[in-house]
């Protein structure tokens, strides 16, 4: 069983996201350690991309700040290597197809394995295009994590049947970002997923408050939060890790109930 699947075994999971290098890698490292200490089950590490078409303004901002600071894919691999000296929870890359393709899919997946990355999420690689990436990630034992959206309908079973690691259930239409209300019937989507795979599923997009995380985790296996964490970085900069730790603690407590 993959480390990612194991991370869901001790109850509902909380999965925070952070963009590597926003505002710098030292801050990202501190934040990831705070996340682990405060109960994060998996951390999603964003490799910034110049034109992140699936992101709302908050994470777009993080991408721009990180790239302006001179972040590169190679620097992020070195950073993960350093992080892996003490961080034990599964780490998953979230980035865009061109970042992986341009680095060389084989070279990228091989570096993932060397440095201790457990999975990759590519929001612009749907089921129909995944073979090019997944055929390689599989060889290196890296989980290729699929997304299911509110509009997936008749596609849910097909995607779920080939799931690896966990399934990322997109809560709402549109891009990433904090939402006051999530109207999609997640329970119905999860029901179809469960009929087709044993892989756990976590819900992301739009979640920021403990009540939302609790509600989403109640009908799935966990909650994913990105923009709310990036907002803490916007607000506190290099001092953000402590606040992120407190936030993760509160959110983890919420999903467990």
């Amino acid at each position: 069983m993959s480390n990612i699947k194991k991370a869901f075994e001790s109850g509902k999971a909380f999965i925070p996201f952070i963009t590597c290098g926003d505002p710098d890698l030292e801050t990202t490292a501190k934040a990831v350690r705070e996340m682990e200490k405060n109960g994060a089950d998996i951390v999603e590490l964003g490799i910034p991309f110049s034109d992140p078409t699936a992101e709302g303004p908050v994470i777009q901002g993080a991408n721009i700040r990180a790239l302006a600071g001179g972040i590169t894919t190679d620097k992020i691999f070195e950073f993960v290597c350093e992080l892996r000296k003490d961080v034990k929870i599964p780490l998953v890359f979230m980035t865009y197809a061109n970042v992986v393709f341009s680095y060389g899919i084989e070279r990228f997946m091989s570096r993932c394995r060397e440095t201790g990355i457990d999975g990759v999420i590519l929001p612009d690689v749907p089921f129909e295009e995944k073979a090019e990436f997944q055929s390689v990630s599989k060889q290196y034992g890296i989980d290729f994590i699929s997304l299911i959206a509110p509009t997936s309908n008749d596609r849910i079973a097909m995607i779920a049947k080939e799931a690896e690691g966990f399934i990322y259930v997109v809560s709402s239409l549109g891009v990433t970002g904090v939402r006051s209300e999530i109207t999609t019937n997640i329970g119905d989507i999860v029901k179809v997923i469960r009929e087709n795979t044993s892989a756990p599923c976590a819900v992301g997009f739009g979640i920021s408050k403990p009540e939302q995380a609790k509600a989403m985790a109640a009908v799935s296996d966990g909650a994913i939060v990105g923009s709310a964490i990036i907002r803490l970085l916007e607000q506190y900069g290099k001092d953000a890790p402590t606040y992120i730790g407190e936030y993760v603690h509160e959110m983890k407590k919420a999903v467990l109930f």
Partner: protein
Amino acid sequence: MTNSKGRFGVHGGQYIPETLMNAVTELEQAYEYYKNDPEFNKELTDLLNNYAGRPSLLYYAEKMTKDLGGAKIYLKREDLNHTGSHKINNVLGQALLAKKMGKTRLIAETGAGQHGVATATAAALLDMECVVFMGEEDTKRQALNVYRMKLLGSKVVPVTTGTATLKDAVSEAMREWTSRIDDTHYCLGSVMGPHPFPTIVRDFQAVISRESREQILKAEGRLPDAVIACVGGGSNAIGSFYHYINDKNVRLIGCEAAGRGIDTFETAATVNTGRLGIFHGMKSYFCQDEYGQIAPVYSISAGLDYPGVGPEHAYLHDIGRAEYVPITDDEAVNAFEYLSRTEGIIPAIESAHAVAYACKLAPTLDKDKILIITVSGRGDKDCAAIARYRGENIYE
């Protein structure tokens, strides 16, 4: 890659968020049905002929031919279409298709504003709501077109992210589409993006070469030796090339915007300076850095100022069927002025890139050779910017 659709060699595909997959599948199915539907085709032909003013002229540029002293030059006059460019060919097709699909709202990206104006026009005619995304930088370069879109009843959203140009307008339109799919059709303006857009847009633009082939056969009794068109995303070029692709003796030449030169960073010549990548839903050539970050491209022409190229062009380049040549700002501006002075035709600065290459090529060819240049749009929108380029301080 057994599941992948819409490939041109290795290029194309559907690299988009899962949220949009059913929407593009629905579009593909609707298009496959309506493209063979006599009623749909009758309505579209009626709009093209009686509203957009097709067929467009194939004009023999006699003065230019004599002046250059080589090949005989014909101009395919897409600038004479209603709204002033080839963009209307695709927009009428897509808007009609969207309407048949039950959509009530169109969204679009625009660079120079020509596609935005065409979409706003079709929306007005067909009683649809319309929102156009335009880079803030371009709303300044093309202020008149912003006003035209508003006049036509559309909302124009200035995009401030990234380089605030065409690529950012495309990103923002894609983001908008993922948040509102049910009633909204994304009327993509070029032969790019995820399948089925490169095919749909090509088919609607292919009217250019369908007409020009008949027209040149009638005028000269034979096919041209070369067809020349400018390439940003590549819609007027693919439309100009399409019905000649199987005629191996017809050279197909796409003119890319080199900006300040392909040896500088201020260029948008994708085939000449880019490499294979995945962006905006497709695999194709893109201007990018070593880590795959998309490059901030530059051209005097807002319509060619895009870091990628349509997947079918990338394929035609790979197999050596079409040539892609870089044309600098300076060369394009000279050609803009040259065609105005010589033939009394003011071309769009985009189209001037094609004119510029013809000016280089024609004198090297014998007088019995024939060139067709696609004048993809009219240049009124560019006059103020070109005047400023020449140091004349005029404002629209």
